[in-house]
């Protein structure tokens, strides 16, 4: 359904592999007001809503209880914007976790997630795009919906689908029976008792609550499997990333701590595409005493590390990069935490600087400890083919069942589950208010319709025909 142009829509446009930044974009009449809820300007110019367009405002985004992060707001006032509406772009760190939290907040405050291609469609409908480009816009909408459809389908193969489908089935059955109570009032059949309805609502409600509690907050829809490069400063992570991706997108430098945030790059490996992420050096702030006087720099280090920690939790594969020519450590000492062995691979870089026999001995040590390890040289390219093979195998072969089991919900799906849950709670309350003389059956139906409609995003719409089928297949209707 094409939604209203009067809604304020929001979408994340991370640069994917192309950028350090994560961008949250809002379009619609409430863009400025909604952005103000998550944004604090650094200057004294008042809230964003009080400002004009075509300017940049430095400030910080508030990320729930997690604190705030430096950010920039780009303001565009209607009609001088891409969509011809009020548009706000919030640029901040590219961490999916951060962006996902911001998104959740904005959705909670009344923004709506943009449909595939909706920004472009608005630009077109608003007259910002040449009318001759209709074909291109239509093509874009299709391409974007196909992508989302594929991503959603992939997601639905996991436990989320099984569990929300089971909940949807029970709700649809209950709704069918309640509709039957209304429409087949003359049949000598009690289709459902209030006690049964309440019990079903309790059971399905508890299940959905659990589903919500288990859902990690990161936005995973639209995302490639993530491979994180992690290691002590100066072991050559950035050089390795550049070598693997063939793009010079990280400033590789011999000065420790050059890389601040998680930097991503798409990478083709046997089996498919992954997102390779470089990270800032872990534990950097503890050792860099020189920066203690400069609190701003210290803060920056802290943020970078926080982003890395988030990425560590989320990654499908963690590559612990070590300097083969230095003292070899245990991977948990480098990471500061234990990562399951199946998500872990040690990469001994600078293999060209160590004699072959010594290298073999060091690799053997990891093997004895049960850790996967291989040697490469980012400088000469030695071992990189094997590393690609290893990444592809780990992400697309070994970790497949694991990935499918992760109940990773996108913001959209979480919102759908929440809406369903609220409607079910209201329905549950109605069960308690009923008396022998009066049962608010039609209101119960209204709430259940809302609940099943919310879940339809995950598991498909429940149509009237579907409801009638459920009744006719179970009950003998018709006097």
């Amino acid at each position, binding site marked *: *359904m*094409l939604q*209203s142009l*009067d809604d304020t829509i929001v979408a994340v446009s991370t640069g994917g592999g192309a950028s350090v930044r994560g961008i949250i974009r809002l379009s619609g009449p409430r863009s400025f007001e909604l952005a103000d809820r998550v944004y604090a300007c650094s200057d004294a110019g008042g809230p964003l809503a009080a400002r004009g367009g075509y300017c940049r405002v430095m400030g910080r985004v508030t990320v729930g209880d997690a604190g705030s992060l430096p950010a920039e707001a780009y303001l565009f006032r209607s009609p001088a914007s891409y969509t011809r509406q009020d548009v706000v772009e919030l640029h901040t760190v590219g961490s999916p976790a951060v962006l996902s939290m911001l998104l959740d907040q904005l959705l909670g405050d009344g923004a709506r997630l943009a*449909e*595939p*291609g*909706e920004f472009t*469609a608005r630009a*077109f*409908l608003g007259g910002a795009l040449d*009318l001759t480009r*209709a*074909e291109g*816009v*239509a*093509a874009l*909408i*299709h391409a974007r*919906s196909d992508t989302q459809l594929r991503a959603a389908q992939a997601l639905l193969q996991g436990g989320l689908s099984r569990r929300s489908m089971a909940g949807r089935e029970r709700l649809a059955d209950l709704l069918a029976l309640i*509709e039957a*109570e*209304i*429409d*087949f*009032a*003359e*049949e*000598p059949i009690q289709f459902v008792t209030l006690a049964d309805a309440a019990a079903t609502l309790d059971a399905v409600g508890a299940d959905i609550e659990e589903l919500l509690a288990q859902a990690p907050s990161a936005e995973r829809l639209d995302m490639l499997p993530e491979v994180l490069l992690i290691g002590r400063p100066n072991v050559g992570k950035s050089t390795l990333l550049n070598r693997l991706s063939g793009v010079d997108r990280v400033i590789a430098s011999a000065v420790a701590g050059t890389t601040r945030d998680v930097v991503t790059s798409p990478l083709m490996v046997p089996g498919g595409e992954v997102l390779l992420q470089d990270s800032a050096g872990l534990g950097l702030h503890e050792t860099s005493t020189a920066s203690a006087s400069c609190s701003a720099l210290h803060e920056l280090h802290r943020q970078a590390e926080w982003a890395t920690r988030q990425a560590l939790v989320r990654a499908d594969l963690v590559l612990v990069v070590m300097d083969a020519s230095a003292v070899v450590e245990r991977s948990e000492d480098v990471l500061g935490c234990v990562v399951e062995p199946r998500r872990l691979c040690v990469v001994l870089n600078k293999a060209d600087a160590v004699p072959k026999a010594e290298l073999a001995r060091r690799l053997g040590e990891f093997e004895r400890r049960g850790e996967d390890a291989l040697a490469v040289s980012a400088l000469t390219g030695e071992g990189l083919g094997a590393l690609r093979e290893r990444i592809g195998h780990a992400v697309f072969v070994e970790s497949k069942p694991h990935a499918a089991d992760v109940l990773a919900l996108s913001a959209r799906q979480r919102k759908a589950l929440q809406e369903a849950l609220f409607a079910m709670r209201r329905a549950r309350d109605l069960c308690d*208010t009923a*008396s022998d*003389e*009066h*049962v*608010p*059956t*039609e*209101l119960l*139906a*209204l709430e259940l319709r809302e609940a099943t409609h919310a879940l339809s995003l995950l598991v498909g719409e429940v149509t*009237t*025909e579907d*409801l*009638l089928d459920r009744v*006719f297949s179970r009950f*003998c*209707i*018709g*006097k």
Partner: protein
Amino acid sequence: MRYDVVVVGGGHAGAEAAWAAARLGMATALVTMRLDAIGCMSCNPAIGGLGKGHMVREIDALGGMMALASDRGGIQFRMLNRSKGPAVWAPRAQADRVLYTEAVLDLLRSVDGLDLVEGTVERVLAEPVVVGETVPGGPSLAVRGVVLQGGMELPCAVAVLTTGTFLRGLLHCGPQQTPGGRVGEAAAIGLSEDLERLGLVLGRLKTGTPPRLDRETIDYQQLVAQPGDDPPVPFSFLTRSLSQPQVHCWITHTSERTHEIIRANIDRAPMYSGQIRSRGPRYCPSIEDKVMRFADKSSHQLFLEPEGYDSPLIYANGIPTSLPPDVQDAMVHSIAGLERARIVQHGYAVEYDWVPTDQIAPTLETKRVRGLFLAGQINGTSGYEEAAGQGLLAGINAVARVRESEPLVLGRDEAYLGVMVDDLVTRPPDEPYRMFTSRAEYRLHLRCDNADARLTPVGRRIGLVDDDRWQRLTAKRTAIEALEAELSARRHQGRSLAEWLRRPEARIQDLRTLDPALDVAAIPPEVIEAVEIRMKYAGYLEREQRLIDRHRQVESRAIPEAFDYQGLRELRCEAREKFARFRPRNLGQAARISGISPADIATLAVYLARPLP
């Protein structure tokens, strides 16, 4: 004589269509095979029920006739679902077949400019639309008259076909097959062939009816009586009260023995022998179907419904069947109270032609033939009320076609009538379509009590609502506003009486205990009821209203009638084909066509923003 409108068929659809067209000033003819069968109830002698009763109220609010005839012909009135919320209360009545038919005939005869003609229409005369006036997907033919059996020609601008079960009707009673539209009446064969000649595609549907019993041969001692309501609530907003005596219906049940008889003879049932292959309604299965499909049920309920005050017949509601007569006799005799019952007319099934509804516009006019409107079972619906509703709309839109004025298409948020037509034109039914309240998205708004507020202004604008009906609505509206203002103004313990009324158990007459100065004795009960409903539902109505607002935004995105889908390369083939076939009027309707995805709609919206090259 040349007519503006010729209505073909005198059933519930035809009667409403003729009533509306003639009352709107058209020179109208109603052509029917038998004048004495106008308004005939071919199946059960009852009007209303869930969804259906809602539509009867809507027909009344628009200025139609079904509610008036029901109030005159009714012999038992009940309001269903009283224990549930008022949005799903629905009136239902048993009717005296003779009184009902007389009422319909009386009403039709009271209208000027309406000729009742006995005859069988064999052909629809249509001529090609002038070249240069044709548009993509538009009509290629235009009606100019109808031809009766025997060759008489009735020239007309518009024809409304309400053929019921008569188009190539075939009656089944056991292995015996008889061409006919109804028991004892001939089928219409020529017209079916003629519609195909005009390029319409026909489908086949089936329905059935139970045996009628001699009321003197029933043992009422064994039956449970079901009385009407006291006091009875009328259908029409014009009827102040009902004074006729009410009769009982009677309840009994089939027995294990009944089911044994059916199972032993199932190979002689046309539905099971392969003699009937077309689809019947699942909500009205034959007794053989009930027994075979629900083998674990040891008994099924029957309502024995009197066909009238003086009628010797009892309608055995609950056992529609096409089993052979000897099996029907044995089966009926195995039912408590019917051991010695005599079947006066055996049950039978009827198969008939219909026109799948991707071929009609939401005005009920065929897309192919300008001026040809279809209403009732020819559109795949079942039920008197569904037929009457379409008849009324077809009559109104027939007039709009003659006058070249704006047609009436009701929204899903305005009326069950709107839901029905929208369902038909976006998803052609695969079984006879019956209204259920679950089909309506905005059920709390589409109530029986407010049908007048929703639709009488529409009927007034069209010209079907006379001064009397209009004054009643305005008076009711004023009284509702006055009472609501008073309840909001009067306070008790710092809260208005309106707030007190929101408590689940509170009623307006009880509010006097809070404020003795409140005097509602002189206020009509329908006003009290309306105010209670509006205030108690207030929060929910607001929620539903927000959904309606969204719905209307999408519905307001009109698609030009002549929109050409062929050049839209970015639309999926299936979407392009469906849009071209269904020709939706707006984006909302387009979205409801089965198999259409949100991306198809977004894509279409983009193309709509741009005039095509």
